């Protein structure tokens, strides 16, 4: 059963130096507040996992939390590059960043295999792409047709963090709208933290909602506005202006560090 806890306690207990950590969210419900708390608590040597790393991973990488990134598309959506990610890859600042790079289909299959406790995920993919040399991919032959098919090792994060609209007091979680790969990421992980906009007395069924029962969630922490500057459908819209601003803020190391200090490091345990 999920415990209802404070976000800072949850991060302190569940996210450890050296962990494989997935803060998932496919351009919606990005767990920014949780990422900021990880930065405040100074975690190091994390392997960050996410299909679509964007601003919060740029921040975590720039603040030196990560030693490796597992991903399939890393950019500032609709704006351009992630300058901190680029600086880490291109110039080892603030530290070298190892990359494990997938296609979306490959990474989704790897998460699904992790959730299903399969020894590998299967997809028809990677053939002919240079990605096959740069990712974790193997090949197996069908005993039925002789066809060779790509297989990928399961993703099994030590801890997955997702943001959802709601939980109830028992720690059952409901999220809706674009739900990406969050269910798989939670079920694939050893520990799962869910930040939510609010705790409600009961979760009314909703069209398209994903329900995560309390007994697959380790902890639930309230983080109102915790996906900002991304959005939480039904609660608030994307702060598109911030994504554009981030392009400027993040270009320069000093500007970046000053911004992070003011808006993340020196704030209390609350979303910037």
């Amino acid at each position, binding site marked *: 059963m999920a415990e209802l806890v404070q976000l800072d306690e949850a991060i302190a207990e569940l996210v450890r130096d050296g962990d494989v950590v997935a803060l998932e969210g496919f351009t919606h419900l990005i767990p920014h507040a949780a990422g900021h708390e990880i930065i405040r608590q100074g975690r190091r040597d994390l392997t960050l996992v996410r299909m679509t790393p964007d601003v919060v991973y740029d921040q975590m990488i720039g603040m030196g939390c990560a030693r490796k990134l597992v991903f399939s598309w890393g950019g500032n959506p609709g704006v351009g*590059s992630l300058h901190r990610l680029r600086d880490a890859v291109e110039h080892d600042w603030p530290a070298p960043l190892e990359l494990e790079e997938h296609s979306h289909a490959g990474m989704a299959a790897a998460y699904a295999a992790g959730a299903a406790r399969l020894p590998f995920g299967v997809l028809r993919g990677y053939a*002919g792409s240079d990605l096959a040399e740069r990712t974790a991919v193997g090949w197996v032959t069908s005993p039925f047709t002789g066809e060779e098919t790509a297989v990928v090792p399961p993703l099994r994060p030590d801890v997955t963090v997702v943001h959802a609209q709601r939980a109830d007091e028992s720690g059952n979680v409901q999220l809706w709208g674009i*739900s990406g*790969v969050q269910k798989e990421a939670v079920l694939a992980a050893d520990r799962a933290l869910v930040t939510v906009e609010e705790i409600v007395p009961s979760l009314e069924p909703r069209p398209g909602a994903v329900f995560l029962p309390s007994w697959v969630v380790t902890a639930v922490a309230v983080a109102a506005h915790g996906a900002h500057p991304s959005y939480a459908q039904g609660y608030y819209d*994307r702060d*598109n202006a911030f994504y554009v601003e981030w392009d400027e803020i993040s270009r320069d190391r000093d500007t970046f560090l000053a911004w992070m200090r003011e808006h993340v490091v020196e704030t209390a345990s609350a979303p910037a």
Partner: protein
Amino acid sequence: MTESPNGRYTADEMMAVAAARRLADGAVCFVGIGVPSRAANLARATHAPHAVLIYESGTIGAKPEHLPLSIGDGELAETADVVVSVPEIFSYWLQGGRIDVGFLGAAQIDRFGNLNSTVIGDYDRPQVRLPGGGGAPEIAAWCRETFVILKQSPRTFVERLDFRTTVGHGEGAGSRERLGFDGAGVTCVVTDLGVLEPDPASAELTLTALHPGVTVDDVRSATGWELRVSTDVRSSEEPTSEELAALRALKPAEVVAR
């Protein structure tokens, strides 16, 4: 800016219009964000109101009124027929062979329509680390056909890709079959200068249409390899005033709000 009886328009606008025209009404289209999304939504706003737009965020049948800034925009989910999970959109729908047209951009393309969206320079010591492949490799593998849209220059149309993220026609005719890909692959590349299509025999990209005011030499000098030119190069029709109006009405929501 090009002057025309239908008004002035930019090369980018001509590119979007030419790409949009390729999308048949009713086609099921897997759309990349940015220029492809703009072109697909232009098609939906003009001649293809029943085109079904699918974004890799799992939104099937999205009908955005404003241009989405990202593949995860709330408007895509709110206007979609249904939203499915990301593993499902890639397995049952894309790999499952349900998509007619994939609509992609890229940073580099080669003569066989292979695409780079990963890195400029060496992978381990890149000059420019690009966002990466995302859905592109499997979109180009499994859609019945793939349209590519990107601006033409010697930096984007290159003799040799720095990284082959996505297979178009591989080493030429026969490559896709050897790789086991069902779809026809890249069937057109729409640029700001014209349109290239794979030669039916060799699968090499061949200039088949020029946008108004563009010459074959313009295209040659914007291409990093010895460009093949069709014996029968068509001329793109200029954007109609309806197309231009529809294109200019396609704006991201926050631009509209400002």
